[in-house]
C-alpha cells in the first residue's frame, strides 16, 4: 500500500541508540529530536506510511476501511463499565494507526493546558475515591516546549485574545484562520452573555509556512488526512525532518508484541511482527514507548516476564489504570441564513470561561467549548439533524435540503477524573489477528464528569439561543462507552509506588525504558490533549538527550 521513502536503514541486529515504538504525535517528535541530537533511531509503527497524495475525501471508504485508524476486525476489543461486569466484544476506542498517528486525522484543535491543570489537586483538594493529584511538573516547565511545538509544527492563533490564556513566551507563528459563520454566531451569542470567545488555536496553516502550503479550506479535516499537508501533523513535518538527519529509520507495518529484557533487567529491544508476519527482535540501547494512551499500557502488560509477572515496569500496579477519555457533550441549532459549514476547518472560535466551574455548583470540573459543524454529508444524513427531524421520505429530503447548510453545533470538552477502575487491561479470551490478547477497556465516568458535561451543555444551549437559533437541541449526556482521547494509563509521578514514570519519562522500574504519550498524563486537561502530548515529547527529548550524554541511560 505504501512505498517507504528513501531513508537510512538499520539491521535488526544493529544496537541502535533508541528504539521508538509508535510513530505518532509524540513518537515522531522524539524521533526527530533524538536523531537531530546525533543518536541513531529506529521508529516502529504498526500502521502504514502513507503519502498525502493517498488521502481521500471519500467519507464512506475512509470509515469503512479504517484507512487511518485501528481496524476492529484485526484488533478487536472488549468493553465493560466496571470490573464486576462481563466484558463484551465491541469497538471501545479509536486511534490513529499510521505514521503520524492520530494527528493525521485529528480536528487540529491545539490548546495548551493552563497553569491550573498541573496543580489542581493542591489548589482544590483531593477527591475521595479518585486518583486526582498534581502533576510532578508545572506549566512553567512545559511552556518552552509548548512554544517549540507551535513554532516547529506550525499553529495558527491569536496570542492574548483570551483573558484566561496562560502566559506564553512567544505569540503563535501564524495568524488565526478566517472565521466561519459558526464562529461568528458562537462569538455573537457568547458575547451577549458576557463570555470571552476568541479565535481557536489550530494546528493548520493559515499561510504558507516553512515550505508547506496553506489550507485550501476543503472542509475535510476531522477524520481525514490533509492532502495539502496544511494540517500540522508530524507527517509533513517531524517525520521527513527525522529521516533527513540520516540517522533515523521509520519502519511501518511493524506490530510490536513484547519488549525484551536481559538478565539484569535492562531492555534490549523489542520483538515485532513485520508486514509478512515474521517476528524480529530489533536491538537497541534504550527503548521509548509512545504507542498512545491505550497501546502503551497494553504493550507493557503483554511484556510480562518472571521479573515482572504483572506487566513490565508495573511494580506499582498502576500500569493501565486511571484511563481518562474526556467527554464531548454536543448541542446543535439551525439558523435562518446559510452557514455553509461544510467549507473550511471545523473550529474557528472557542471559549474558556468555564475552564474552572465554580465549586459552588457542587461538583468538580471544567472545560472548553467551541462552535463547529462536525459533520460530512453521510454522517449528517445519518445522525446530524435534530432528533425531531423526519428520518426518511420526502419530508426527510426536504429537511436535509433546508438544514445541511443552516446548522452548527457547539461541542463541549470536559475534564475526566482519574479513576483506578477505568483501565486498559488484557482480555482473558479474545485475541487479535496476531494471536495476542485483545485490549479490554473498562470505563465509567465519575458522576462529576457527567455533571460537568451537563453544565457546559446547558451553557451551550444558552449561547445558541443568544445567537438567534431557530431550532436547537442537545444530545443527552450519557456515560462514555467509546474513547478517542486516550490518557493517563502510565502516569508520571515522583513516587514509584503510585506512578509508572518519573519526571524524565523514565520508568521507575527499568532504567533504559521510557514512556511518552497520552499515557503519561496525570489529569485529563480540558479536552484537547494533543499539544500537551507533543510538548511532553519535546521536553522528554531534551531530558533523555541530557541523560544519554551524561552516560546515565
Amino acid at each position, binding site marked *: 500500500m505504501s512505498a517507504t521513502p528513501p531513508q537510512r536503514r538499520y539491521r535488526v541486529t544493529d544496537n541502535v541508540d533508541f528504539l521508538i515504538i509508535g510513530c505518532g504525535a509524540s513518537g515522531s517528535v522524539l524521533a526527530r529530536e533524538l536523531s537531530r541530537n546525533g543518536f541513531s533511531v529506529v521508529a516502529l509503527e504498526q500502521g502504514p506510511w502513507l503519502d498525502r*497524495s493517498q488521502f*481521500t*475525501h*471519500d*467519507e*464512506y*471508504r475512509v470509515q*469503512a*476501511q479504517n484507512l487511518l485508524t485501528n481496524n476492529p*476486525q484485526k484488533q478487536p476489543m472488549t468493553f465493560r463499565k466496571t470490573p464486576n461486569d462481563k466484558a463484551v466484544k465491541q469497538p471501545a476506542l479509536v486511534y490513529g494507526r499510521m505514521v503520524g498517528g492520530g494527528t493525521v486525522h485529528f480536528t487540529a484543535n491545539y490548546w495548551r493546558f493552563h497553569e491550573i491543570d498541573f496543580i489542581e489537586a493542591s489548589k482544590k483538594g483531593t477527591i475521595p475515591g479518585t486518583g486526582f493529584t498534581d502533576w510532578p511538573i508545572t506549566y512553567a516547565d512545559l511552556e518552552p516546549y509548548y512554544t517549540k511545538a507551535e513554532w516547529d509544527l506550525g499553529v495558527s492563533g491569536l496570542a492574548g485574545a483570551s483573558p484566561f490564556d496562560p502566559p506564553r513566551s512567544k505569540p503563535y507563528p501564524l495568524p488565526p484562520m*478566517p*472565521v*466561519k*459563520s459558526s*464562529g*461568528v*454566531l458562537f462569538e455573537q451569542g457568547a458575547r451577549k452573555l458576557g463570555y470571552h470567545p476568541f479565535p481557536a488555536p489550530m494546528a493548520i*496553516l*493559515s*499561510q*504558507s509556512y516553512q515550505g508547506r*502550503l*496553506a*489550507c*485550501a*479550506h*476543503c*472542509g*475535510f479535516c476531522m477524520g481525514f488526512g490533509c*492532502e*495539502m499537508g496544511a494540517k500540522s501533523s508530524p507527517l509533513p513535518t517531524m517525520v521527513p525532518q527525522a529521516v533527513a538527519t540520516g540517522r533515523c529509520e521509520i519502519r511501518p507495518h511493524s506490530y510490536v508484541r513484547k519488549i525484551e529484557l536481559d538478565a539484569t533487567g535492562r531492555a534490549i529491544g523489542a520483538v515485532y511482527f513485520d508486514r509478512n508476519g515474521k517476528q524480529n527482535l530489533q536491538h537497541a540501547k534504550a527503548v521509548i514507548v509512545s504507542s498512545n494512551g491505550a497501546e502503551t499500557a497494553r504493550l507493557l502488560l503483554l511484556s510480562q516476564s518472571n521479573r515482572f509477572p504483572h506487566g513490565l515496569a508495573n511494580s506499582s500496579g498502576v500500569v493501565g489504570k486511571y484511563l481518562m477519555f474526556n467527554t464531548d457533550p454536543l448541542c446543535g441549532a439551525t*439558523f435562518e*441564513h*446559510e*452557514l*455553509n*459549514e*461544510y*467549507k*473550511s476547518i471545523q473550529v474557528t472560535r472557542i471559549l474558556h470561561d468555564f475552564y474552572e466551574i465554580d465549586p459552588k455548583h457542587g461538583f468538580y470540573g471544567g472545560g472548553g467549548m467551541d462552535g463547529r459543524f462536525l459533520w460530512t*454529508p*453521510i454522517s*449528517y*444524513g*445519518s445522525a446530524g439533524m435534530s432528533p425531531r427531524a423526519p*428520518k*426518511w*421520505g*420526502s419530508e*426527510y*429530503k426536504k429537511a*436535509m*435540503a433546508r438544514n*445541511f*447548510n443552516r446548522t452548527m453545533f457547539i461541542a463541549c470538552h470536559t475534564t475526566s477524573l482519574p479513576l483506578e477502575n477505568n483501565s486498559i487491561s488484557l482480555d482473558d479470551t479474545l485475541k487479535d489477528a496476531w494471536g495476542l490478547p485483545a485490549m479490554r477497556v473498562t470505563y465509567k465516568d465519575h458522576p462529576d464528569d457527567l455533571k460537568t458535561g451537563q453544565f457546559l451543555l446547558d451553557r451551550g444551549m444558552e449561547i445558541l439561543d443568544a445567537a438567534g437559533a431557530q431550532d436547537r437541541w442537545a444530545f443527552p449526556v450519557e456515560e462514555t462507552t467509546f474513547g478517542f482521547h486516550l490518557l493517563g494509563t502510565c502516569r508520571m509521578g515522583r513516587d514509584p509506588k503510585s506512578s509508572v514514570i518519573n519526571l524524565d519519562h523514565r520508568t521507575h522500574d527499568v532504567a533504559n525504558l521510557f514512556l511518552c504519550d497520552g499515557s503519561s498524563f496525570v489529569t485529563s486537561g480540558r479536552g484537547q490533549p494533543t499539544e500537551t502530548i507533543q510538548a511532553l515529547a519535546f521536553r522528554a527529548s531534551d531530558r533523555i538527550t541530557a541523560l544519554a550524554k551524561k552516560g546515565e541511560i
Partner: protein
Amino acid sequence: MDNTRRTFLAQAAASLGLLYLTGLTPEVLAQAHEHAKTAPRDLDGQPFRFFTPQQAADYEAFAVQIFPTDDTPGAKEANVVRFVDFALSEIEPQNKQDFTTALEALNAQAKKTAPQATSFAALTSAQQIEAMKAMEKSDAFGTLKFYTVAGFFGDPADGGNKDKIGWKLIGFEDSFYYAPPFGWYDGQAMKEKA
C-alpha cells in the same frame, strides 16, 4: 492538471487580492483542485456482484422510500442500489452477512404487514411505508438506512450519488477549495469590518 486550467486558476486567484491574505495562493488552488478530481464510477447496466435480482428489487424499494423521487431526484436516480452492490463486494465484504440479514428482516416484516406478499418489493407503496414504520427502530432498519444514506450522499467514485444528486440536494459543492466568506454570517461580519 492541464496548463490551461492551471493558468486559469492562477489568474482567478491573482485577480482576487484577498485570496493571498487567506493563504490561497495560485499554487494552493492548483494543488487543491488537482486533488479534488475523482472520477465517478458508472456501474449502470453491469451485472450485480452481491445482490440477486430479487434482493436488488427489495432493497431498491426500501431505498426509494427513504429518498423518494418527488420534485427532486431520489435513491433510484442516484444509483444507490449500485453503490451498495459495489460497496459490499469491494469495500466492506465483511458486512455482507449483516446486510443480507437486514434484508431478510425487511422481507419478514413485509409478510407480517401483508401475509400474501412474496417480498417487500411486491408490497404497495403504502404497505411498504407501514412495514418500514413497524421496524423503524430495529438494527436491520438502521443498517439498510445507513447504506442508503451513504449511497445517496457518498463520493460518486463508489458508484452512488450519481450526477451528484445527493450533494446537489443539500447544497454541498465539491470543489474542495473555498475562500471566505464561506456563509452568510461571516459575510455579514466581513462587511461590518470593512
